[in-house]
C-alpha cells in the first residue's frame, strides 16, 4: 500500500507516488473487467473523433459538397445526404453537439440530485419532507412529453436550451436514490462520531458522506447522460430542435424528411443511429463496470470462469466427462 502521507516531503517524489497510485488503481479497474475495457475504448474513440473533427473531416458539414445521396465512396466515406452534405463530417461534428448537450444535461441533473438528495437525506425532518415532496412532484412529470410541449412552445430551440431543459427535468430519479443512500449512511456510527467530535455539518456532508456515494453519483450521471442523449435525439428527430445545427438528432430528422430509407440511401439514416447506439452502449458498459468495482459481489466474470473450471475438474474426477 502506497502511503503518500508518510513519504518524505519532497514534492517531486510525492507527485511520482500519486501518479503510480493512480496507475495502479487504473490497472486494477481494467484487469478482468472486459466491459470497462470495451466501454472506455469506444468512448475514447468517439471523444477523439468529436475533438479532432476539423482534422479528421475533409468537408464542411454545413456546406453542399456533393451531389444528393451519393453512396459511400473514396471521397465521401459515408456518402452524402439529400442536401449534398458529407455524412462523415456531419457525424463527427454532430458528436460534438450531441455529447455536449448530454454531458451538460447530466452535470446539471446530477448537481441538483446531489444537492437535493444529500441535504434531504441528511437533514431529515421538515427539510426532508418538503424536498421529498418537490422530488415526487418532478418525478411524476412525464418528461419527454413535457419536453416536447416546452420545445414546441418555445419554438425551434437551440441545443443548449434543450440541455438545460433536460437537466432540470431529469434529476428526481437520482435525487431519490441519493437520498435513500444518504439516510442509510447518516445513521452509521462514523457519522455520529464525526458529529460528536464537533465536525461541521457541511464538512460531514462533503467529506464524510459524499465520498461514500461516488459510485451511485457516477452511475446516475452516466444513466442521465444516456437518457439525455436519447431525449435530445428524439427531440431533434421530431424537428423540435434547431434543425440548422448539426447534431445526431437533426441528422436523423433530415434523413427522415428526405425519406432516405425509401430512396435506398440507408447511410444517411443508419450512420447517426449507429453512432447513438454505440455511444449509449459504451456508456452503459462503463456504468456496469463501475458497479462491479463498487460492489465486489457483482464481480462475477472471473469467478464464474473459476467455478466452471473447478466444476469441470470435479466432473472429470467423477468420470462424467
Amino acid at each position, binding site marked *: *500500500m*502506497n*502511503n*503518500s*502521507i*508518510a513519504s518524505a516531503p519532497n514534492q517531486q517524489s510525492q507527485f511520482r507516488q500519486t501518479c503510480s497510485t493512480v496507475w495502479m488503481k487504473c490497472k486494477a479497474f481494467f484487469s478482468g473487467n472486459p466491459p470497462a475495457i470495451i466501454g472506455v475504448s469506444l468512448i475514447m474513440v468517439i471523444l477523439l473523433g468529436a475533438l479532432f473533427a476539423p482534422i479528421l473531416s475533409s468537408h464542411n458539414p454545413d456546406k453542399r459538397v456533393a451531389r444528393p445521396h451519393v453512396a459511400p465512396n473514396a471521397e465521401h466515406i459515408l456518402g452524402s445526404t439529400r442536401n449534398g452534405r458529407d455524412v462523415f463530417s456531419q457525424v463527427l461534428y454532430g458528436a460534438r453537439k450531441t455529447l455536449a448537450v448530454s454531458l451538460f444535461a447530466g452535470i446539471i441533473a446530477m448537481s441538483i440530485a446531489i444537492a437535493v438528495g444529500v441535504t434531504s437525506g441528511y437533514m431529515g425532518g421538515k427539510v426532508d419532507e418538503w424536498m421529498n415532496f418537490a422530488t415526487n412532484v418532478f418525478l411524476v412529470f412525464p418528461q419527454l412529453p413535457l419536453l416536447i410541449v416546452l420545445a414546441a412552445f418555445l419554438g425551434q430551440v437551440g441545443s443548449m436550451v434543450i440541455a438545460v431543459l433536460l437537466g432540470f427535468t431529469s434529476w428526481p430519479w437520482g435525487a431519490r436514490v441519493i437520498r435513500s443512500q444518504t439516510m442509510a449512511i447518516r445513521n*452509521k*456510527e*462514523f457519522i*455520529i*462520531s*464525526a*458529529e*460528536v*467530535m*464537533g*465536525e461541521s455539518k457541511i464538512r460531514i456532508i462533503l467529506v*464524510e458522506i459524499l*465520498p*461514500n456515494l461516488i459510485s451511485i453519483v457516477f452511475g446516475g450521471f452516466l444513466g442521465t447522460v444516456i437518457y439525455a442523449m436519447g431525449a435530445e435525439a428524439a427531440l431533434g428527430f421530431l424537428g423540435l430542435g434547431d434543425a440548422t445545427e448539426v447534431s445526431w438528432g437533426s441528422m436523423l430528422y433530415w434523413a427522415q424528411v428526405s425519406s432516405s430509407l425509401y430512396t435506398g440511401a440507408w447511410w444517411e439514416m443508419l450512420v447517426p443511429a449507429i453512432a447513438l447506439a454505440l455511444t449509449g452502449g459504451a456508456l452503459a458498459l462503463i456504468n456496469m463496470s463501475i458497479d462491479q468495482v463498487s460492489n465486489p459481489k457483482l464481480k462475477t466474470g472471473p469467478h464464474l470462469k473459476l467455478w466452471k473450471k473447478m466444476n469441470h475438474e470435479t466432473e472429470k474426477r467423477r468420470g462424467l466427462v
Partner: protein
Amino acid sequence: METTNTPEVVLSVRNLIKDFSIGKKKTMRAVNEVSFDLCKGEALAIVGESGSGKSTGARVLTRIYDKTGGDIIFKGQPLDEFVKQHGSLEYARQVQMIFQDPFGSLNPVHSIFHHIARPLLIHKRADKKTIEKLVYELLELVGLFPAAETAGKFPHELSGGQRQRVAIARALAVDPEVILADEPISMLDVSVRLGILNLMTDLKDKHGISFMYITHDIATARYFAEKTAVMYVGHMVEWGNSDKVTQTPQHPYTQLLLSAVPEAGQKGRRELGAKKGEIPMWTGDTKGCPFAARCPRALDKCNDSFPGVTQIAEEHFIRCHNI
C-alpha cells in the same frame, strides 16, 4: 450515588429523563430518573440488557439527543451553561465517545490517518507540521505498531480489535476528560477483548480519564470499573461499588442477571427463579416498579409506585420495596 471521600466529580447526572415520541402524542420513556456521578480517573459500568436505555443515556450525555428532564452537571456547571460559556466544540472535546461496532465507526473511504488527524485539526491541537508526529504518537499509545504504516491503511485492512484501537486513539486525540464507551468490546473476538480492556484501564489510571463503560457483560464490568450501576427498562435499580454489586447483589434483577452468567463446571440447567413476565413498555405515566411483572419477590405496592433509594451498605444503593 453519594460516596464518601470521592475524588473530583467530573460529570454528574441527576434524575435524567429521556422520552422518545412514538406516533402522535405517545411517548416512550427510554431513560427514567437516572442519577450518577462520574469521578476523575474512575470508571462507572452501566450494565443492563438490550433496550434498557444504556446507550440512550450515553447519547444524551454527548448531546446527540436532547434530554427531556433532569440535570447534567459538567465540572460543576449545568451542561447548558457550560456549552454557552465554552462553546459546544469545547464540550465535544472533553466528552468523547467510543462506539460498539468497530466496523461501522470508521468511514470506509478515509485512511486511519484522516480519522485521527480530523479531531486534532477540528480542535486546533495540531497544525500541518506537527500533525504527523502527533498521529503516530497516538497510534503507538493505543498499541498499533508500526504507526506510520497503520496510518496509511484503510479501515477494511484492519481487524476488529485494531479498528477499536483506532477508535480509542481518535477519542484520545483531543485529550478528553470523559470517554463514554458504548459496549466497546461486545463485537470483538473474545481473545482481543482483554487487550482493549487493559488499554482502557491504562488510560484511566495513567491519564486520569473517566470512563462510562456501557456493557451487558457483568463480569467485565467488575474487572474494569470501580462502580457499577444496573439498569432495567430505563431505570437504575442497583448501583454502587462494583465488588459489592456483583458479589452481594440485593435487587432481584441483579441476582437474576448474575445467575445467568455461565459458570465453569456447571451441570444441567439452573432455575433462574424469575417469573416469565413481560418486559414493560414504559411511558411517562406508567406507575410502579418496572421489574414487578417478572419479580419473584413482588409485593402489591410494587405495581403502584417506583421504590425510592435505599442505602444498604457503604457505596451500595438499591431501589426495591422488598429488601
